[in-house]
């Protein structure tokens, strides 16, 4: 179980980071969502993985730690609200700039710069 769990967290985080580095807002939003999934699972595992255990101290030998579950719940709620806000921000960006690039406009390609320079020289 530990291996599968670790692989899932790793995949989610790696995919999330990859998407975060994209230039369009939609992949960035997706990336942040995946990253927060990975983080939530990671936080969940910080209480150690156990199945079928009680969350009450003293009742059995081993027990499931209830605190990470409370932390994850908080993190999920906050993450959800933030994602909603980010989606609205991205739409606003698209509406304001007519472009869904994260900088609001395409970066100039070097070839275009050359053309402009040449035009300027020609004049």
């Amino acid at each position, binding site marked *: 179980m530990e291996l599968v769990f670790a692989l899932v967290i790793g995949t989610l985080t790696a995919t999330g980071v990859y998407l975060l580095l994209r230039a369009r807002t939609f992949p960035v939003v997706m990336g*942040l969502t995946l990253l927060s999934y990975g983080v939530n699972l990671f936080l969940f595992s910080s209480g150690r993985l156990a199945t079928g255990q009680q969350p009450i101290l003293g009742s059995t030998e081993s027990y499931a730690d209830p*605190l990470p579950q409370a*932390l994850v719940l908080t993190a999920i709620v906050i993450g959800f609200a*933030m994602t909603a806000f980010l989606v609205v*921000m991205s739409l606003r*960006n698209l509406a304001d*700039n007519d472009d869904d690039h*994260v900088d609001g406009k395409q970066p100039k390609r070097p070839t275009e710069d050359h053309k402009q320079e040449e035009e300027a020289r020609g004049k």
Partner: protein
Amino acid sequence: MNHWLTAPILIPLLGGILQTFMGYAPMPLRRTLAVATTVLLVAASLILLSMADDGSYRVYAFGNWQPPFGIVLVLDRLAAFMVVMTSVLALFCHLFSLGGADEGNRQFHTLFLFQIMGLNIAFLTGDLFNLFVAFEVLLIASYGLLMHGGGTARTVPGLHYVVLNLIGSAIFLISVGMIYSVTGTLNMADLAVKVPQVTGENLQIVKAGGMMLLIVFALKAAILPLCFWLPRAYANATAPVAALFAVMTKVGIYAIIRVYLLIFGDNAGELANLGMDWLFPLALITLAMGVIGALGADNLRSLIAWQVIISVGTLLAPIALGSREGISAALFYMLSTTWTVAGLFLVATLIANHRGSAGDRIITAPKMHHRTFLSVLFLIGAVAAAGLPPLSGFFGKVLILQSVEPGTNMAWLWSVVLIGSFLTLVAYSRAGSIVFWRTVDGHLNAPDRLSGTTAVAAGAMTALSIVIVALAGPINEYTDATAAQLLDPSAYLEILKAPMVGEDN
């Protein structure tokens, strides 16, 4: 248990909730109630300051749960200092916003008050996860505030700000998980007990967690590799918001002071002074970077936004060295620089409003209206920010320079701070002389009247620099005592034994 500790959180919370439901009430009523809330907050924070001044720790345990099992609020000198600094700043920013900046969005006052609430939770909490929640509360409010105001200029900086801070939150959660998985606690006092006992393979996990936590705080404080979001975001924000944001970077610095002196302080065994040897060079490079940015700024607001980064570097250098004098000096300088920078943001906006289409760009323009008044305010702000005598920035910098012991560190700190101050002075004089003195012939249509509220708020915010000088003795005594209290964390651990209500003592 001391119920006063909840006042700086409950006052803006209740005031903010009230504002939420009053979105359609007449403007004067909303404004009166909003400012009344902030005034109450200043009064409450001054009461907390007088309580904290006796040097003891006061605890408020939510739900009467004995720490470390429940969430606690802890009041000490540092927390009270930060709360007072924030609430005084908030009062003047709030007054300034009544000049018209609060129009256009029914929820401006709500967001403003919730922002203050988030800041106060961050300063008062004694729990690492609660600190995360506080960061989120203040960030959510700040996202809304940053976007406040018309136009499309704020969209892209706002988007960057939100995405960066969401990544920061993710890293915060990962580091909290790492620290919890080893120590089994998130109460700061309990962590300070547990972290020195960590051994073996667990040591690396806590170490990694601690360093990731430093990255999060560095992002909030805008230390060099993580500071590029700040100038554009701050330069584009509405004036009272930008001025209030002057305290946002200080939250990161506060968190560094709190966590790294208490949990990873001198007593933390193998993890003692974690990350502090990284912080000193980074602080100096941040300072240098800020100075370069200020020299290259083409408008007043981005010049002041770079000043924020300069002050972050100046503040963190003595904190990283960790001497008692250094921390005391840093706290003194923090008070001075936060209020000065906020005042400058307000003044820059007033200047922009009176220069027609030139705005706050550093270019020649027709002679502006109210030039004498505004230029005097700008002069006071610039002198205090650059650190010239006789204003507060000078005393802050002198205290910082005096706090280092002779050696390589001293050589680096003195040269970077002094050269940096000189070049900052060049940047301000260039900006001031172009904006105020070099005028071209022309006519500014529709001369704006300088509204009373904004002029008084900006003037008072700037004049606080003079107030700090007048009260320099008491303030310095207080910061000295704060630094001493911070460097002796053993008393902080006593809060674990704080008696709860209804227990037999």
